[in-house]
């Protein structure tokens, strides 16, 4: 790093920079920490930023975890997330690779057509009518397919493929590999960061998706976790997720926040492993020079 003899003003500068970063850290973390604390809140206590560990109550988690509805929703979320990532990544890679080949006839036209859908969206109801006409209402396919390809992710991946050294592909082609083999054996192994990053984008989008399930699915038993969370937070059908007749041992706030924690948790477990690829993966594709 650029470290030389520090003048007093430079030292002040460094201090204020670090102070600012710590401030950002605090502002980011305090709300999340507080959510965690409230989720441990026992009855009759006021929530506070630092709940004594001997006061922690896991009742709210117990209430939620022992509900079959929650588990069903979690399973639905898992299916939608994993299935969604598989479908989306496959479609995106298969579309991005040909479009990254500058010599492909009609490439500009196709990119233009795809870009247009990014800029101009037909809206909710026209899309709903399509899903209905395809007979996909009330099936997972409606949610999985409708948002399968994100134009942004597609373009990022295309730019990434373009940035790969062409010499490797050339070499493979001289050895007699066809386009599929080049993609599979040369391009994809080099694309780990972008695949992980875009995969995370798709995964998170699917995991967080609550709007399309509400719109397309009518069976309660198909609903994923975010819908459950929204219902719990807005007090819509709370009875559905916690036993109404059993003596309720956790305050409502704790239940709500425990639900928030439970739903965020799986993502928090995956995120750090993929986060380090962000800068590598995203930046290459984000701006076209």
């Amino acid at each position, binding site marked *: 790093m*650029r470290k*030389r003899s520090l003048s007093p*003003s430079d030292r002040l*500068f*460094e201090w204020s*920079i*670090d102070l*600012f*970063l710590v401030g*950002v850290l605090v502002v*980011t973390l305090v*709300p999340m920490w*507080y*959510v965690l604390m409230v989720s441990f809140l026992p009855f009759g206590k006021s*929530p506070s930023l630092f709940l004594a560990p001997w006061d922690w109550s896991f009742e709210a988690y117990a209430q939620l975890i022992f509900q079959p509805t929650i588990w069903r929703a979690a399973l639905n979320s898992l299916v939608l997330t994993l299935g969604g990532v598989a479908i989306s990544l496959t479609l*995106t890679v*298969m*579309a991005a690779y*040909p*479009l990254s080949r500058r010599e*492909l*006839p009609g490439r500009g036209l*196709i990119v233009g057509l795809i870009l247009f859908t990014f*800029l*101009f969206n*037909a*809206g*909710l*109801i*026209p*899309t709903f009518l*399509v899903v209905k006409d395809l007979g996909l209402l009330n099936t997972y396919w409606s949610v999985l397919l409708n948002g399968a*390809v994100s134009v942004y992710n*597609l*373009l990022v991946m295309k730019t990434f493929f373009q940035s790969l050294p062409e010499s490797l592909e050339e070499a493979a082609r001289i050895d007699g590999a*066809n*386009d599929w083999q080049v993609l599979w054996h040369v391009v994809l192994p080099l694309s780990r960061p972008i695949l992980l990053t875009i995969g995370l984008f798709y995964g*998170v989008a699917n995991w*967080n998706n*609550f*709007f399309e399930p509400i719109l397309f699915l009518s069976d309660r038993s198909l609903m994923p976790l*975010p819908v459950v*969370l*929204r219902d719990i*937070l807005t007090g819509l059908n709370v009875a559905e997720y916690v036993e109404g007749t059993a003596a309720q041992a956790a305050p409502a706030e704790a239940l*709500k*926040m425990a*639900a*928030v924690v439970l739903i965020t948790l799986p*993502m*928090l477990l995956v*995120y*750090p492993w993929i*986060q380090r690829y*962000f800068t590598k993966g*995203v*930046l290459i594709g984000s*701006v*076209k*020079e």
Partner: protein
Amino acid sequence: MNPAIAKSLAGRDGLATLLRRIWRYRLLYLMLLPGLLYFLIFRYWPLWNAQIAFKDFQPMLGVWGSPWVGLQHFQDFFSSYYFGQLLANTLIISVAKIALGIPPAILLAIALHETSRRFLSRIVQTMSYLPHFLSWVIVYGILLAMLSPSEGLINHGLRALGLEPIPFLTSTATFQPVVVLSEVWKETGWSAILFLAALLSINPALYEAAAIDGASRWQQVRHISLPGLMDVLVLVVLLKIGSILDAGFHQIFVLYSLPVYSVGDIIDTWVYRQGIQNFQFSLATAVGLFKGLIGLVLIVVANRLARRFTGSSLY
């Protein structure tokens, strides 16, 4: 030879070459096919259905069979009592998000770039990107924990100081600030990535030369880092202006409530309520089209401007 015949021959020749080229890339086209089908079915077919904006949509008659009504739904929207309010709310929230969202992102990028503590830099990056991945439903839960008048952390603090609690989410005075600041909280880290990248691409020799010339760290930031960010900044601002009518549907959909409709209702939430909750499908589609059209014009213009001023653009 007759020039016309020559031309047509050349054309046939050209066509043949083209077909041959296409045949050569058949595998690539095959690869492209599923993606193209996706866009055709899920993006272009809805555009065809969007004609119900100009029709009185009757489900029994279908999209094609419903009778035309021209621009009636558009007129209904423009003459609606709430039209002015919706447009104002949409623009105010959108502009405030741009104006208050970009400076912290730049600041964060500079701080991450300047700090000599790599561990701090790493951990701040990891943590500040995180909220971007939380859905608005989750952020709503976090906001409830912080802001609820009876249980929220901030109101506990106010009460401890002997002040009156503030109903942040239901007061017309505080709702828009909550919307804007929660967006800033959620997205600052993520938006900083772009600026950070621009900083990393500045030639380190510039800093070294400046340091030798006796420039302080602050002067280096002012005269090297900030100018280095200008291109990206212009690009980001212009592109945000292109999507200025998107004030954040998912966010407001989970945050707003009756007491704050007058300051929180935006075009998209109105479309949702009219279309889905009041079953006025044609009207909702018309407003959606109107919004899409304005957005399209803005983004094309913004992109032109971006290309002119910075040489880089979205597409």
